[in-house]
């Protein structure tokens, strides 16, 4: 450390024992707040933070400006005249085809899609992970390996086969079908998380429960589930974000009455004619991202803990 104050060698007079022991530095090593190390550390962090915050700043600022002000240029300058009109428009009056009720319509659809999809996908993946961690059967590893490789398959490739499967099941176009799709695509990474997490729990706990006479489901519900909170939070965050932000499946596998908010966002943002209403776009973007953002802000701390518990032990 550059700011070390070297002990004065002259102070070590070999003849004066008591004086000797009193001399020299004592107490806490002085560490000025503005030590070069701190300046560099916090400097770098703040610089990085600016890079990460800039887009959000731009989004917010732009969404509060009127179109004339935006056309003047500088996207970084704060709004001269704050207007909430873009927000109102994005939320309630922007048109999609004939329906001019903005994002508000899609919001409830998104909620209707996200909640059951998140719940079902996590429920299934957690049971899978549990079975893989504690009740391994022959071939389980093979299926799991296929599943993990599946995480790398581009979604687009799978659309057609899934359309066919859902058609054959008669579920195409229904909410159930969409939930199944989200469950399928969430499965690899969630199963991996849960499997790793349950593997990291002491196996003896599982054995003890078996000796106590608990079966597969009893152990899952009574023993494993209550212990899996951190990883459930991670899974929940991942799924809520993923499903809420999904556009492709929401539109390919459902009908218009279920279209999620992202479809309206896409419509607002990609309107082909007229001038691009950047302020409305940005307001719509923030509104659409609000739910996952909120989830992150609230549970970010648990997220890191859960990641530590489930992901890195791979």
């Amino acid at each position, binding site marked *: 450390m550059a700011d070390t104050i070297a002990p004065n060698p002259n102070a070590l007079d070999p003849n004066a024992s008591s004086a000797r022991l009193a001399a020299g530095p004592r107490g806490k090593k002085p560490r000025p707040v503005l030590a070069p190390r701190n300046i560099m550390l916090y400097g770098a962090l703040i610089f990085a933070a600016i890079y990460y915050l800039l887009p959000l700043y731009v989004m917010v600022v732009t969404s509060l400006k009127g179109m004339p002000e935006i056309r003047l240029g500088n996207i970084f300058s704060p709004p001269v005249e704050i207007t909430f009109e873009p927000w109102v428009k994005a939320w309630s009056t922007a048109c999609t085809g004939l329906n001019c009720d903005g994002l508000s319509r899609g919001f409830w659809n998104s909620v209707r899609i996200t909640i059951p999809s998140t719940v079902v996908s996590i429920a299934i993946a957690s049971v899978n992970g549990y079975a893989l961690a504690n009740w391994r059967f022959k071939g389980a590893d093979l299926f799991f390996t296929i599943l993990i490789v599946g995480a790398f398959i581009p979604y687009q490739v799978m659309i057609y086969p899934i359309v066919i499967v859902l058609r054959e099941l008669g579920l195409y176009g229904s909410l159930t079908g969409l939930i199944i799709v989200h469950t399928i695509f969430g499965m690899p990474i969630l199963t991996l998380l849960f499997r790793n997490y349950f593997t990291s729990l*002491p196996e*003896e*706990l599982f*054995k*003890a*429960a*078996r*000796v*106590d*006479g*608990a079966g597969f489901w*009893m152990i899952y519900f*009574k*023993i494993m589930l*209550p*212990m899996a909170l951190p990883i459930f939070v991670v899974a929940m965050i991942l799924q809520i974000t993923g499903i809420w932000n999904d556009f492709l499946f929401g539109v390919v596998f459902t009908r218009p009455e279920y279209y999620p908010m992202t479809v309206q966002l896409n419509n607002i943002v990609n309107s082909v004619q007229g001038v691009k209403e950047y302020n409305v776009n940005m307001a719509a973007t923030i509104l659409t991202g609000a739910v996952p953002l909120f989830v992150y802000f609230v549970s970010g701390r648990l997220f890191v803990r859960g990641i530590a518990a489930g992901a890195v032990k791979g």
Partner: protein
Amino acid sequence: MTSNSVSVRDLSLSFGAVTVLDNLNIDVADGEFLVLLGSSGCGKSTLLNCIAGLLDVTEGQIFIKEKNVTWEEPKDRGIGMVFQSYALYPQMTVAGNLSFGLKVAKLPQAEIDKRVARAAEILQIQPLLKRKPSELSGGQRQRVAIGRALVRDVDVFLFDEPLSNLDAKLRSELRVEIKRLHQSLKNTMIYVTHDQIEALTLADRIAVMKGGVIQQLADPMTIYNTPENLFVAGFIGSPSMNFFRGEIVERDGRKVVSVNGVDLSVDSYKARGPIETGSQVVLGVRPEHVQVDEASTGTDVHDAVVDIEEPMGADNLLWLKLAGQTMSVRIAGARRYAPGTPVRLSFDMGLASIFDATTENRL
């Protein structure tokens, strides 16, 4: 033949290509305290898990209370099990931990309460019943873990190194408690450990295991005093038995073990059969079976120099050099020898062991 509580017949178990247990047989009598002793990885836990039904056997049969339970579920075997890491359910209170199994078995609430109360009383954990495991000390946790086996009201208790996560002091306390528990409950206990002190103090019989094979199965004193082979001799006893590799030679009509020119008479050794002159042997002498006395004289007295002294309070352990080898001798704690002090040793050959150098079996 007395009734056997647990019998294992021709048990084999493999994990894939690795065979951990091979054709193992063992019988545990009713009310017996059997300790499975062996170093890490020798298959003790595996055997215990097979008996508990937590691992599917590859080959063989398991009987508990004369009933073939080879393919029974753990809960139907009439066993209780205690684990090294306690394995308490962290989100339940102590009472919840104790009653979980009973609730699963749908016992009437009154019966559950009765059993929990009884176990809590036996283990003196009544004041803890409302706490969560995280609010307990290590020893208390282990007691709750034992309680969980206790409430199951079973005939056979299985312990998998229940004390090895505790510190030395607690370990010796709980050891006594387990012993007392066994004396009062009188049910069969199978206890896995790699701590020989635990094995010696607790067991009615000890099964010393190595590489999935039982090396010797006998009561503690037999194992300590007349180990069946070199492995058992070396494994039991701390500090270890001193081993001297040598040859049987005739000197003046007496058979002696000649170790690097030092002769140790085997006259007083109770051999199982004749000991052939010229055979290569290993002589084993425990540290406490060597007398240290500067004054003794005679043919069977040997000179040595103290290398290191380890005072342990009640005892004092001397490390000496004899016949070019390091050996340890245990003497009373009050007798001190500085390193470098010359001493005279005499061996208590009646309590020594002699093993064939090739088969490693006791002669």
